[in-house]
């Protein structure tokens, strides 16, 4: 049974289709990244999962239960971090922790998290920097060791050291058999810690792939160097995309089978040199947003 099962989820605000028919599953022990630029529908989808907003259509199940009907029960096992980390400005971090302990029971992890994140729990939230507010949000999401973590942009505003610490925590959670769904527009972050990425564009899923599959997408960049005439027209005629032209050569992007273009290139007597590279993950990712 999948920890999260989403079927044909739609959320429309009037004419705006914030989420438009997405379906996906997250299995136990996975870290899955919701990837996409601002406005792709990541936060809206997360808010539907958390039952903050109600789907226009579709079905969401968490731990096999309807996420709306069993919202309060399910939240015992869910740790959530919102994208803004908005907290009570007149309270200290410790007061937030105490408040959640009264609702959810005593935490065994809060002291360790406070120490490792180097967080001053006695300062009022109004006196905390954005990064420190984020730390408090993370402590509150993790302190009751939930089986499922739903995190909206968890590392925004954190320095690289703390980002790495968060990655370690998330990996440790998964090692314990817990599950993480996190949104991000930071590809490097998703590449670093996620098992799979759900790539969203304008409310729709463009692909759901493992990180290795995503990396293995057959997109190549070919640099061809010529002596004298550069056969630009001939080379771009069969689907190869011209990236740039320079003195004595050009750079081409090729998707799919590379062999026909290579055969064509080697037939040119004036071909001086050839350089073929795999596209970076970022370039693969950008393909979805064209």
């Amino acid at each position: 049974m999948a920890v999260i099962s989403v079927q044909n989820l739609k959320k429309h605000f009037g004419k705006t289709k914030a989420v438009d028919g997405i379906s996906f599953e997250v299995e136990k022990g996975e870290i899955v990244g919701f990837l996409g630029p601002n406005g792709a529908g990541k936060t809206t989808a997360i808010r539907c999962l958390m039952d903050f907003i109600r789907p226009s259509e579709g079905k969401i199940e968490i731990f096999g239960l309807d996420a709306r009907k069993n919202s309060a029960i399910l939240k015992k096992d869910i740790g959530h971090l919102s994208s803004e980390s908005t907290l009570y400005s007149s309270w200290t971090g410790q007061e937030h922790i105490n408040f959640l302990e009264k609702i959810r029971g005593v935490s065994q992890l809060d002291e360790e998290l406070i120490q490792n994140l180097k967080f001053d729990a006695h300062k009022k939230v109004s006196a905390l920097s954005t990064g420190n507010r984020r730390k408090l949000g993370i402590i509150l999401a993790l302190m009751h060791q939930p089986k499922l973590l739903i995190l909206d942009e968890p590392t925004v505003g954190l320095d690289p050291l703390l980002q790495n610490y968060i990655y370690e925590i998330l990996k440790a959670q998964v090692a314990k058999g817990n599950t993480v769904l996190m949104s991000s527009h930071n590809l490097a972050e998703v590449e670093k810690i996620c098992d799979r990425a759900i790539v969203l564009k304008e409310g729709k899923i463009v692909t759901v792939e493992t990180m290795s599959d995503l990396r293995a997408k057959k997109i190549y960049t070919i640099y061809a160097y010529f002596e004298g005439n550069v056969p630009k027209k001939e080379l771009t005629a069969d689907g190869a995309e011209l990236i740039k032209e320079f003195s004595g050569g050009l750079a081409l992007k090729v998707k799919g089978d590379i062999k026909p273009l290579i055969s064509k290139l080697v037939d040119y007597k004036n071909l001086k040199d050839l350089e073929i590279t795999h596209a970076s993950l970022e370039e693969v990712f950008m393909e979805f947003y064209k």
Partner: protein
Amino acid sequence: MLTLFTKTIRKSLISLVIYTIISVAFVWMYVALFPSIFKEREKLKEAFEAYPEGLLQAFAIEIDTFVGSLEGFMAGEYFSFLWPIILIIMVITFASAAIAGEIDKGTIELLLAQPISRLKIFLAKYFSGLSIITAFVFLSNFSVVPFATLHNVDYRIQNYLAVSIIGFLFAFAIFSICMMISSFSSTRGRPAAITGGMLIIMYGLNLFSSFQESLSSLKYASFFHYYDFNSAVVHNQIDILNIALFLVVGIVTTIIGAIIFIKRDIATI
């Protein structure tokens, strides 16, 4: 639910103390003033008799009781305008902050992410607000007792109980309406503006209805007509219709507010 209830009470405690101190200070001032008013009652009666009848009616002033008893004086000076204004400001402030204020600040997501149903969140907010109102109504009104004793003024305690009951019911209806508006709003200013606007119109209707005979039926559309402080504090009487109206309005709008809050989308910016 109890955690959220106590959290809301704690958060509102300073405001409650401030509002109560302001009201108690006015009560003290009026009680301290009353012995000199009583001493000069004949001259004051003459002065009041020169006033237009409609004006006295509009502010529910009965000349004989106004100068002849502490309850009449308090009715004209305190319960007619000052106390309901403080009460209304307090009620609107709490109700607007309860739901819309949490959404406005974004803190509602922290509550919604906890294993508490939306109904319990609504009820915790609702009952904490009602508790604050109850505390304010009784603390401010019964402060008459020590000040009257201090200044050797006769008082009828049961009349203050009666005015507290009708005052509480008046506040209950306004609080419930404002909570209902707060339930479908996402900014704190909206329920405050709508409820405030509604009460200004109601106050105007009640005022105009007492000046013009032809407009007298307008008073039935105003809560201020049913908030009959004069009968309560001067005569120790509460019309059952007034009680019923405030209760029905309060209960119906509370149910609507709870349903809206349970069903609505809650998205912070």
